[in-house]
């Protein structure tokens, strides 16, 4: 092949000029940047012209520059000398190539020097420079998986083998951690770094296979670290396979070094592995569900499973031949059928109508839109106050408002996903439960396409699990019992989801025996929850199953009935500002109806003022607001201040004391008290005045203020001021502590 080295010579000349005409001996950062870019061009050109020795030199020189930038070079004078020498050698090689098409000198000495000034290597052996030893194993054609190694420096290579294997062990430990906590960036970094180090040393030792594999894995991890691709099981698989492949390669390297025959490893298929890495990098990951052509053909009934296996076996000798080709040659399928199957396969991989978006980007977007909506309401307020607002302005603005509100609708919907996945997980759970309880259960799903905020999916899962356990274990009867009651032997659990009035409603219904009011009551009396059979409505009785320590299961089972569960459910639901209701009929079944707000990003709140500060109380927890009379205020020794509201004595919490503010009113009878419900009973919150009811966008207070007791977040109010959102439960605890 005729090579043209003129471009390479020119690039080298440019580099030499840039370096030699610098003003001082020292390489400063802007110069290092220029030189690095030039070296990159040279490396590309050298690769193109197949002058690998020049390419190796560029690696050495880049390492020196990179260490210079990082200020990690102790002996700057030697570094400069070695750098000059490197430029010189590259020019010599390029000259020699352009004259004779070859170069007979050795670059080993230079590479060793470069290594030592860059501080990369372990001490270099003092005796004569390691002879270049080329071990060529490609003559052994029986195995495809054996790699060729060119060992340039024995001592260095030995160090690399030991260190490399240690690194891989580190990777293996951390990847298992990552699998458990895919969000943890520390683990990604912990895997990234060793791959990075392996790549660095391998590139220096000219171990191209190892370098390129480590590099590919590193850049895949870099994308993961940047959030461009997410941690999925297939990513974990690829990284583990990659680490294994590196281990095998390094093992083979050791064999070569020790003069042993290379142990063969049939599993090593680096090109296939690298192809998988690239697919993942481009987001075209082959999920576990992606089928092979053969499988698609079998599914379509075009060929039989036996035929496929037979053909695959026969094809084993010629791996380059595609299965489709083999099948066509055998005449069992038509080319058209193969192309259809191929198309089907592609459809599985690339769904062109969707893209993957990092959820934090979505969250940011929704947050911004929330702000926009608030700004819009501020503007609209201003316009209303302008006595003679321009007609055109008013019209334009109303158009703007329409756009903002549809923008808000659309952006909120971006984060919505169908509840289907959750339902399917729950269906599996029901099956498992049925097995452990010995009951026959079928599941009916209604409204699986109902959408829910992605951020809520995980949070609602646990309470739903508890409720389903309850339904299967307590609700449904044993098959024999059901037959006796004249019901079908197989019980039915219905999961139903739908939207209603700004809420998503999820119902879990069973056709079991229904709640036994009498049993709940006697249990409640026994455990002291109520004093006697008070006059309670059905709803009130049903709700008792949410009280801590009340389980109506006759015996404690594995599935439920330890007296924990339903109270946890209630708390979890309320934490998401949800509500839970029960409908039940003896002999017909029980239905749990849970309602959640469509999104956790917006809260329906009441804005109150204490002094000059505004606070937002979540409307769901407010029972009423009143101005107490002087008589209703009592101070009880040992119990603190109380307010008698609605015939009930409730502790008074003075908000201004908790938050250390100068209030407008210090006497409860001048101020307003808001009666707020919580798990631990009701309290009266004393505020100066109630401003309005409003929907606000919940904002986190940032890392530093994340865990402040009593505050759930902040919000920007209609007038542009900041209001803090009260976490009632936390506020009560805060008040108790005082």
């Amino acid at each position, binding site marked *: 092949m005729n090579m043209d080295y003129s471009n390479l010579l020119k690039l080298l000349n440019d580099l030499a000029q840039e370096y030699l005409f610098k*003003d001082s001996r020292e390489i*400063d*950062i*802007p110069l*290092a*940047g220029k030189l*690095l*870019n030039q070296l*990159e061009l040279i490396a590309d050109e050298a690769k193109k012209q197949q002058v690998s020795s020049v390419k190796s030199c560029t690696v050495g020189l880049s390492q020196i520059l*990179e260490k210079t*930038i*990082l200020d990690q070079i102790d002996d700057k004078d030697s570094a400069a000398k070695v750098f000059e020498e490197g430029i010189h050698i590259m020019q010599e090689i390029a000259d020699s190539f352009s004259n004779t098409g070859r170069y007979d000198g050795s670059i080993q000495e230079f590479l060793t020097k470069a290594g030592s000034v860059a501080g990369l290597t372990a001490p270099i052996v003092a005796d004569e420079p390691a002879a270049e030893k080329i071990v060529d194993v490609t003559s052994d054609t029986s195995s495809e998986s054996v790699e060729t190694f060119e060992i340039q420096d024995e001592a260095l290579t030995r160090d690399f083998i030991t260190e490399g294997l240690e690194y891989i062990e580190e990777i293996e430990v951390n990847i298992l951690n990552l699998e458990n906590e895919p969000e943890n960036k520390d683990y990604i970094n912990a895997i990234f770094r060793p791959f*990075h180090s392996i790549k660095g040393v391998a590139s220096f030792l000219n171990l191209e296979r190892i370098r390129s594999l480590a590099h590919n894995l590193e850049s895949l991890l870099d994308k993961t670290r940047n959030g461009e691709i997410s941690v999925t099981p297939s990513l974990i698989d690829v990284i583990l396979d990659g680490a294994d492949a590196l281990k095998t390669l390094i093992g083979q390297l050791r064999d070569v070094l020790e003069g042993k025959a290379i142990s063969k490893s049939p599993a090593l298929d680096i090109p296939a592995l690298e192809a998988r890495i690239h697919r993942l990098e481009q987001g075209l990951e082959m999920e576990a569900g992606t089928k092979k052509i053969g499988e698609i053909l079998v599914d379509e009934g075009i060929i039989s499973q036996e035929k496929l296996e037979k053909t695959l076996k026969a094809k084993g000798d010629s791996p380059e031949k595609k299965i489709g080709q083999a099948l066509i040659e055998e005449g069992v399928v038509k080319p058209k059928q193969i192309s259809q199957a191929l198309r089907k396969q592609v459809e599985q991989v690339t769904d062109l109508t969707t893209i993957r978006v990092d959820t934090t980007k979505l969250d*940011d977007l929704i947050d911004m839109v929330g702000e926009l909506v608030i700004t819009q309401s501020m503007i609209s307020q201003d316009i209303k106050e302008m006595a003679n607002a321009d007609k055109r302005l008013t019209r334009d603005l109303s158009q703007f408002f329409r756009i903002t509100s549809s923008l808000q609708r659309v952006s909120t919907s971006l984060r919505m996903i169908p509840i289907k996945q959750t339902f399917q997980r729950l269906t599996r759970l029901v099956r498992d439960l049925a097995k452990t309880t010995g009951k026959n259960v079928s599941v009916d799903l209604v409204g699986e396409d109902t959408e829910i905020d992605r951020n809520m999916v995980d949070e609602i899962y646990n309470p739903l699990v508890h409720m389903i356990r309850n339904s299967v274990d307590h609700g449904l009867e044993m098959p024999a019992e059901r037959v006796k009651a004249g019901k079908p032997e197989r019980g039915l659990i219905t999961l139903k989801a739908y939207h209603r009035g700004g809420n998503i409603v999820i119902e879990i219904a069973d056709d079991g025996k229904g709640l036994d009011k009498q049993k709940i009551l006697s249990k409640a009396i026994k455990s002291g929850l109520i004093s006697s059979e008070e006059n309670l409505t059905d709803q009130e009785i049903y709700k008792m199953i949410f009280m801590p320590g009340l389980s109506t299961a006759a015996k404690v089972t594995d599935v439920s009935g330890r007296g924990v569960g339903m109270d946890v459910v209630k708390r979890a639901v309320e934490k998401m500002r949800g509500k839970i209701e029960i409908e039940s009929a003896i002999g017909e079944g029980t239905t749990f109806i849970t309602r959640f707000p469509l999104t956790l990003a917006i809260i329906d709140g009441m804005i109150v003022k204490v002094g000059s500060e505004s606070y937002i109380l979540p409307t769901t927890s407010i029972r009423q607001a009143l101005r107490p009379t002087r008589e209703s205020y009592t101070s009880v020794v040992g119990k603190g201040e109380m307010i008698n509201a609605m015939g009930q004595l409730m502790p008074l919490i003075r908000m201004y004391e908790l938050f250390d503010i100068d209030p407008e009113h210090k006497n409860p009878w001048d101020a307003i008290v808001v009666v707020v419900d919580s798990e631990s009973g009701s309290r009266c919150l004393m505020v100066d005045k109630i401003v309005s009811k409003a929907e606000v966008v919940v904002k986190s207070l940032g890392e530093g203020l994340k865990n402040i007791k009593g505050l759930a977040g902040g919000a920007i109010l209609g007038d542009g001021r900041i209001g803090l959102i009260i976490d009632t439960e936390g506020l009560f605890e805060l008040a108790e502590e005082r």
Partner: protein
Amino acid sequence: MNEKNIKVLIVDDFATMRKVVRNLLKQSGYEDIVEAEDGVMALKVLKSQKIDVVVSDWNMPNMTGLELLKAVRADADLAKTPFLMVTAEALQDNVVAAVKAGVNNYIVKPFTAEVLNEKIKKIMESINK
């Protein structure tokens, strides 16, 4: 060039960090300081007024320090603006990427007023040569 006459643009998404850098600069006698909370804002500032040196954080939402640097270098009017990159740790890949993109210098958190001043001085000297 006197510190007083050097106009510094601090780019960092974290307000506290901006304050820290501002205080360190003040300790060394810098008076003309402007701030931007991300790369997009920084570009706006750069286009509207003459900035002598940019001190930009690496890790920022919307537009990273590296992206800002590349945008500055790609803009004919701003290309020569001195740029000092602040990084959390001297990760070789990051620093090398910044150097290749044409950063004038970089500084690793945490740093002292002296080191920051020294780096800015060095940049100013090298471009005034």
